[in-house]
């Protein structure tokens, strides 16, 4: 097949696989989104109860985090990766391996979901020990992650073969983006796989008595921050390779995209301790180093902000705009047949605020003001529930439309991102303002702080939690419309040819890739930086740990097993 050809006939096996990988998580997302609405109402004290619809608050919060942020995002990244690699390299992926990956992820998802529904996994999506979940919960997580690795390994031979057959040619930017996503994922999930398989699973089964809590948390955050780039990078692939064409123009600079992606490979991972600024066991100087590197990882987003603005300006001028700023009015904001532009554009607008608040969090001692307050979910809903979520649900709809040959049902598809934007503006403002007044995150406040009958009643927060509930309700309504459109489209009659097609942009400045042609130097640089930034952190954690901890059931304030402090630890009561 020629590279000029923009539409590929679709392999039926890839179609079936993709529909499962988009459809099943979308179905689960109904629970995740519904859980989100309930949490805003329970936090605000509109529902004053330990549980709603049969789910305890913290159980629902665990589902909200795991379904929305892990299951939905990872399934989407794999499905999108399969399709983009196949489309951009004009080749067929090995479906046997892709199905194996899919089954591992599906079985893992079911294991985790069943345990959380059974009340055996109310440990939130961070699963911090010594709160303990059922062993099946941890085993399911491990299977899920290994499945996503298999999906990635499946693309590597295709990439190498393409490079052999196309010497001197630039790898398509979309493929570079997908590989960047999964290189970061591959590196960062190894420590969390170690945490789950070597520390948590045997401990939860009772084969080991205790584990080192701060060590486990450090391994989690080695994974937890790159995780946010794993969410963000598929959205970046869409911003760089698709948004310019959807706007009617070209990507301003191809090289800028490659530079941004390579910086993500280097700097996504050695920054994780910025989630642990408030924790003991890590030297303040190493926290400062991680803060410095975190400020560095904003640079690819500055590049993206510039390149996107320049690309949109070019598109506006192609559409006949004159003068300094009126290109801004010429963009296709509300075209029902070009809904994908709206999802990506609105995502960029929300990300502006998500990025700025992220810089605040990264700023070392400024974190004292916001750590673990409601500010945090206010911030990250403007990243993961902004550009990431909108790009993913928009592209899910787009892929279903193209792959099934069914036209999107309902003109409101283009309105969903705008309704969502209004909702999230109110929702995140409420959370962040409340957070600055001390409102904690992850807390069923309706029972205490927002309950006038409680001795802990805190009326100062009333306004902010009400804003959060109103914004959350608007976001929920946007998703009701979206789900209706998605499933109506999925189950409607086929009217067009089934195709594999993405709106890939040409580049305005189409330079040679130069030092960005290969991943190898960037991966090596990443590993060196990880060793430099994490070795002292791990040494500090080990030397400051006085004893390791037994498991606890979240419902019971005593250890789940008989526990004796090791005799060599002196528990001193004077200091």
């Amino acid at each position, binding site marked *: 097949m020629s590279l000029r050809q923009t539409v590929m006939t679709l392999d039926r096996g890839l179609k079936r696989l993709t529909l499962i990988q988009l459809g099943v998580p979308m179905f689960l997302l109904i629970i995740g989104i519904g859980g989100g609405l309930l949490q805003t109402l329970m936090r605000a004290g509109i529902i004053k109860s330990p549980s709603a619809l049969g789910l305890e608050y913290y159980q629902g919060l665990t589902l909200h985090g795991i379904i929305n942020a892990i299951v939905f995002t990872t399934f989407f990244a794999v499905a999108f990766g399969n399709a983009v690699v196949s489309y951009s390299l004009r080749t067929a992926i090995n479906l046997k391996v892709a199905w194996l990956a899919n089954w591992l992820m599906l079985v893992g998802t079911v294991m985790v979901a069943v345990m959380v529904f059974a009340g055996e996994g109310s440990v939130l999506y961070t699963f911090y020990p010594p709160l303990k979940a059922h062993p099946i919960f941890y085993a399911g997580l491990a299977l899920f992650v290994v499945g996503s690795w298999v999906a990635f390994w499946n693309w590597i031979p295709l990439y190498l073969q393409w490079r052999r057959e196309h010497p001197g040619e630039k790898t398509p930017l979309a493929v570079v983006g997908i590989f960047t996503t999964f290189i970061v994922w591959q590196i960062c999930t190894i420590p969390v796989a170690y945490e789950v398989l070597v520390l948590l699973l045997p401990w939860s089964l009772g084969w080991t008595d205790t584990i080192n809590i701060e060590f486990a948390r450090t391994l989690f955050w080695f994974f937890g921050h790159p995780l946010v780039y794993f969410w963000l990078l598929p959205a970046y692939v869409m911003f760089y390779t698709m948004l310019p064409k959807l706007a009617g123009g070209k990507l301003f600079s191809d090289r800028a995209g490659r530079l941004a992606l390579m910086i993500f490979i280097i700097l996504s991972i050695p920054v994780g301790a910025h989630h642990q600024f408030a924790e*003991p066991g890590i030297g303040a100087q190493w926290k400062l180093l991680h803060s410095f590197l975190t400020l560095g990882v904003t640079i690819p987003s500055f590049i993206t*902000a510039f*390149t996107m603005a320049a690309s949109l300006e070019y598109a506006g001028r192609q559409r006949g705009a004159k003068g300094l700023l009126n290109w801004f009015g010429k963009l296709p904001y509300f075209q029902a047949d070009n809904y994908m532009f709206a999802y990506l554009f609105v995502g960029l607008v929300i990300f502006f605020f998500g990025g700025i608040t992220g810089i605040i969090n990264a*700023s070392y001692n400024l974190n*004292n003001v916001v750590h673990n307050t409601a500010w945090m979910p206010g911030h990250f809903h403007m990243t993961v529930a902004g550009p990431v979520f909108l790009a993913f649900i928009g592209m899910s709809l787009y892929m279903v439309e193209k792959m099934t040959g069914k036209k999107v049902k309902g003109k409101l598809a283009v309105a969903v991102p705008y309704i969502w934007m209004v909702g999230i503006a109110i929702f995140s403002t409420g959370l962040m303002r409340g957070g600055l007044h*001390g409102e*904690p995150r992850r807390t069923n406040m309706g029972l*205490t702080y927002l309950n006038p009958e409680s001795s802990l009643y805190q009326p100062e927060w009333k306004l902010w939690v009400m804003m959060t509930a109103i914004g959350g309700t608007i976001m929920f309504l946007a998703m009701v419309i979206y789900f209706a459109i998605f499933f109506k489209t999925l189950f409607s009659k086929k009217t067009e040819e089934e195709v594999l097609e993405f709106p890939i942009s040409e580049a305005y400045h189409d330079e040679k890739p130069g030092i960005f042609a290969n991943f190898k130097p960037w991966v090596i640089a990443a590993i060196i930086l990880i060793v430099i930034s994490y070795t002292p952190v791990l040494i500090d954690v080990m030397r400051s*740990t*006085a004893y390791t901890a037994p498991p606890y059931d979240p419902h019971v304030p005593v250890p789940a097993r008989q526990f004796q402090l090791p005799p060599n630890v002196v528990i001193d009561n004077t200091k």
Partner: protein
Amino acid sequence: MDKYEQRAVLGGSFLMLVFFVAVVIATTGFGVTVPTCIVDVKPFKHGQLLKLADKHYELHAVAKMWSFDPPEVTIPPGSRLDIFLTSPDVAHGFNIEKTNINLMAIPGQVTYASVTFDQNEWGNFRLFCHEYCGMNHHAMQGWIKVWPAAALGATNQLAPVAAQQPTPAPAPASAEKPADTTTQQPNGGAQQ
């Protein structure tokens, strides 16, 4: 790359460098720090408040499922409070509202921070657990009560401020500390 694009990269990098320098100045010049690695203080079992000197106290705080030990402490305005914090069970949070004290209590570890309350700032400061620590997490709250000894009754219960305030009220607090329901200014009206 386009020359404007290069300027955008350099401009963004420079801005981040400025932010980082500001962070370093706040740390070294103004002493706003984050917890560091402590190896010479071992975890303790019981919470207590020690008076080290006039207006200098040391709090040994234990955060546990689902309360703080001690649940409340009372110190006079203008005090310096050195906090050592640990947890005997799961991870907890320790956030004193309207201060820069925002800590994590991790089993097996001890953490430290220090705060000096303003001479003119009185009131009850809530102390929140902000880390999910099990099914009763939302009820885990303590109090840091900053009151002059004269305002305390014989039973160590708080009495109305206006009635118990014998000396002339100190100067009003600075403008950046607005009066609110939990931090009272002496001249800001009575509340129990």
